[in-house]
């Protein structure tokens, strides 16, 4: 019996990382559901896919690339370029279907170009795709410096249509709870996912992909000697990933209903981490497209758990993802080690083999202990920290970042204010506007009360000089904008000088407004009066 189990495990050794991922996904979700009753809502589960549909599409393409032993860093750049180009073309009044077609063609062209560089000019994949990313991101700003809003009927429909799931709908209706739904991007992303599985497993092209990757490039040599179309396959893989990036970009632009060159920053690393967590080895040749879904799911689940916890800040996502990546790489290298161990044990004598086996079991026990400790801490750490009030605690329900109150600011400017500063959002949903007048009067308004403060004219002049010194009216200061986040503050600063008026906005906690902007802000923050009930 035990022999049968052993041989079964040995036969399916390649699936160990994948099943570990799947197991972790199930365990993490169950733990979340136990800890946070809100997570039991099926819609929360489906939202993970709704919010990450573009990541899934991208991960499918990336898995294919990684399987050949390559890597594609251009993903985020191509996505950003797609959002900007889509938004700009739609603003220009082009037919949305034509726009989508054009974007997909652009993605294919970019992917193919990078593929040519990698395949025929023998460039390192990451250098060529890095150049691709820089190029794509740079091109975004040739199209537009600012975020462009998308107002289009088709895009509206795609983002709003709710697709009900047969079976689940009846069940929810019978229980009288709200009916869960998914969106068109989810359906498309799953189509792409299944297409990826089919291509990688059941086609000649897919087998060639597996044959190329792994063994530090030596497998590529063997594949070439076997007469497999190595060059064509690699070129095609990068082209497919270009297509996937463009498709992901279209859904991203639907998701945020706008386009900007700074979107999807660092997204390629999320995708690569998801692919690794999904059990695909970065050396190539081993893994599967199936795992991509689990990788994305775990990524999304981590974010959901952190949101539900409420006391953990957004950066915990990164730390957890980093730890998980480490964990799965550990599992992979153990699997790889098991192989070489077995080969070695077969060549050894009795005594030596015994010694090796013992060493191996020790390592395994160590890893199992590590996994147990890690998962236990993952479950209990949030609870503990919750009680101790570690980090910034969100007391109330999360609030959505509010819109910039342009009219109010204009009012103040018309009134003669030279600096207007607005801060809103955050954990307690504040909305404060401060206006600074050249004569030293400062008015603060948070919707409930109005505070006033008088400073000297010299102080205002100094403040103004400082802000202008930081390069306020130059290209150094530019807008950033990103997806509203519950715990973040939005900052808007308008400065008027010699007839120039410029507003720069930034969101705290996860965007990259220029450092100079934050320094200008801190000058202003230092001078404005405090509200009594601040915080």
């Amino acid at each position, binding site marked *: 019996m035990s022999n049968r189990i052993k041989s079964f495990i040995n036969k399916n050794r390649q699936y160990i990382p994948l099943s570990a991922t799947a197991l972790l996904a199930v365990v993490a979700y169950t733990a979340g559901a136990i800890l946070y009753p809100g997570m039991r809502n099926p819609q929360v589960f489906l939202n993970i896919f709704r919010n990450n549909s573009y990541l899934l599409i991208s991960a499918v393409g990336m898995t294919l690339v990684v399987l050949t032993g390559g890597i594609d860093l251009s993903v985020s750049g191509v996505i950003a370029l797609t959002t900007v180009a889509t938004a700009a073309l739609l603003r220009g009044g082009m037919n949305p279907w034509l726009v989508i077609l054009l974007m997909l063609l652009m993605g294919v062209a970019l992917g193919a170009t990078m593929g040519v560089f990698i395949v025929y000019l*023998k460039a390192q994949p990451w250098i060529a795709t*890095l150049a691709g990313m820089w190029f794509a991101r740079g091109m975004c*700003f040739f199209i537009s410096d600012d975020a462009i809003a998308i107002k289009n009927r088709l895009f509206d429909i795609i983002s709003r249509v709710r697709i009900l799931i047969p079976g689940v709908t009846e069940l929810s209706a019978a229980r009288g709870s709200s009916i869960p739904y998914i969106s068109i991007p989810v359906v498309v992303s799953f189509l792409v996912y299944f297409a990826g599985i089919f291509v990688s497993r059941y086609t000649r092209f897919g087998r060639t992909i597996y044959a190329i990757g792994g063994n530090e490039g030596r497998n590529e040599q063997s594949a070439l000697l076997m007469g497999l179309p190595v060059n064509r396959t690699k070129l095609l893989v990068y082209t497919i990933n270009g297509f996937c990036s463009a498709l992901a970009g279209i859904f991203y632009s639907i998701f945020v209903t706008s386009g900007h060159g700074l979107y999807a920053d660092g997204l390629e690393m999320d995708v690569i981490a998801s692919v690794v967590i999904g059990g695909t080895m970065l050396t190539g040749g081993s893994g599967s497209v199936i795992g991509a879904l689990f990788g994305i799911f775990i990524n999304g689940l981590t974010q959901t758990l952190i949101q539900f916890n409420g006391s953990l800040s957004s*950066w915990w996502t*990164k730390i957890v993802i980093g730890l998980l990546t480490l964990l799965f790489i550990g599992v992979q290298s153990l699997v790889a080690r098991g192989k070489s161990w077995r080969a070695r044990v077969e060549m050894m004598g009795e005594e030596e083999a015994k010694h090796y086996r013992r060493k191996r079991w020790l390592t395994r026990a160590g890893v199992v202990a590590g996994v147990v400790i890690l998962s236990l801490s993952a479950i209990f750490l949030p609870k503990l920290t919750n009680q101790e009030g570690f980090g*910034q605690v969100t007391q109330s329900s999360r609030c959505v970042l509010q819109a910039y109150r342009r009219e109010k600011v204009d009012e103040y400017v018309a009134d003669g204010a030279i600096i207007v500063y607005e801060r809103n959002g955050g954990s307690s949903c504040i909305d404060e506007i401060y206006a600074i007048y050249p004569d030293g009067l400062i008015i603060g308004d948070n919707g409930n009360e109005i505070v006033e403060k008088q400073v000297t004219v010299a102080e205002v002049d100094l403040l103004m000089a400082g802000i202008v010194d930081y390069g306020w009216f130059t290209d150094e200061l530019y807008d950033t904008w990103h997806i509203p986040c519950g715990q973040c503050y939005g900052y808007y600063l308008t400065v008027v000088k010699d007839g120039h008026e410029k507003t720069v906005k930034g969101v705290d906690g996860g965007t990259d407004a220029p450092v100079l902007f934050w320094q200008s802000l801190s000058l202003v923050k230092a001078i404005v009066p405090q509200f009594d009930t601040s915080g």
Partner: protein
Amino acid sequence: MKKKSMSETFRRLTESRIFLPILALLIILLFDAIFIPEFFKIQVRGGDLYGRVIDIMRNASTVMVLAIGMTLVIATGGIDLSVGAVMAIASSVAAIMMNPTIIGVELPPNLLAFINDPNFTYSPLWEVILVTLAVSIVCGLWNGLLVAYMDIQAMVATLILMIAGRGIAQLITNGVRIQIFYEPYSFIGQGWILLPFSLYIVAILFLITWLITRKTAIGMFIESVGINPKASHYSGIKEKRIKLLAYTFCGFCAGLAGLIASSNIKTSDAFNIGKTIELDAILAVVIGGTSMSGGRFSLPASLIGALVIQAITTTMYALGVPAFALQAIKGLVVVFVILLYSEPVRVLLNKVTSEKGRPL
């Protein structure tokens, strides 16, 4: 063999590792000299030198420091993607040590009290620098352990710290941008003694590294590990220790770069400091001609690679190209470098030179 004199020295010059990066730098500078008025103008203000050329060197100093560490790592056949994140960690540690009052406080009421007090620091400067560097060395050690002793692919191993590191840096500062007012600290990145102070740091670091790698056997060991780790192992080189050393040193360099960068902007910005700078550092090494697959390396060539990148950036700024569009141009530069080092172009170049020189 017959006409040795001129053509032979020319050949030797063109085949030298440092020739291409220097040529690239010269071409860019020539372009600047023609198209940008007063590009080479150097002013003397209060006994210190200022000017665009000095700006290039000063702005390149972070990447140069990183490139020195990265060169050794790449020479062992590895790569370190985490340098940017380590920079962020280092700057967070430094800032929190000098200005710890801000942790957890969204808007400190006493900010006004020391907003411009250049003498305020919580821990003495030497302690700050020492602890920061120690932390970054630990980061490097972690990478080295994963790569050398856990046999994890370098790109993957350092990817972990790259992802988690920024989270850790934000954790340290609680996600707040901490301003640094302490004047002696900002001297690291902003001070001038005739030349920018950061350049002296680069020079000292380069000299020490160069001496250690070229005057002792360590440099040879590194190259040997990069060319063939197995063969080095059998010939008695402790290849794991060499790798560990390289990554640890790279971590140290990243910490140093973090100090320079954060003192330059007087802020610890966990999210922005060193963002995508790992790519610049790697690019500098690649422009310097060190092969990505490991083996022979040249430290001065990597430094010039870093200067080339910065010279392009400064030139574009001087020409009024917006900051973001610059990335597109950077991408094109990489494409050009790829073309230059690619096989078909090499073959073509060889053909051209062999036609002129000797028959093949």
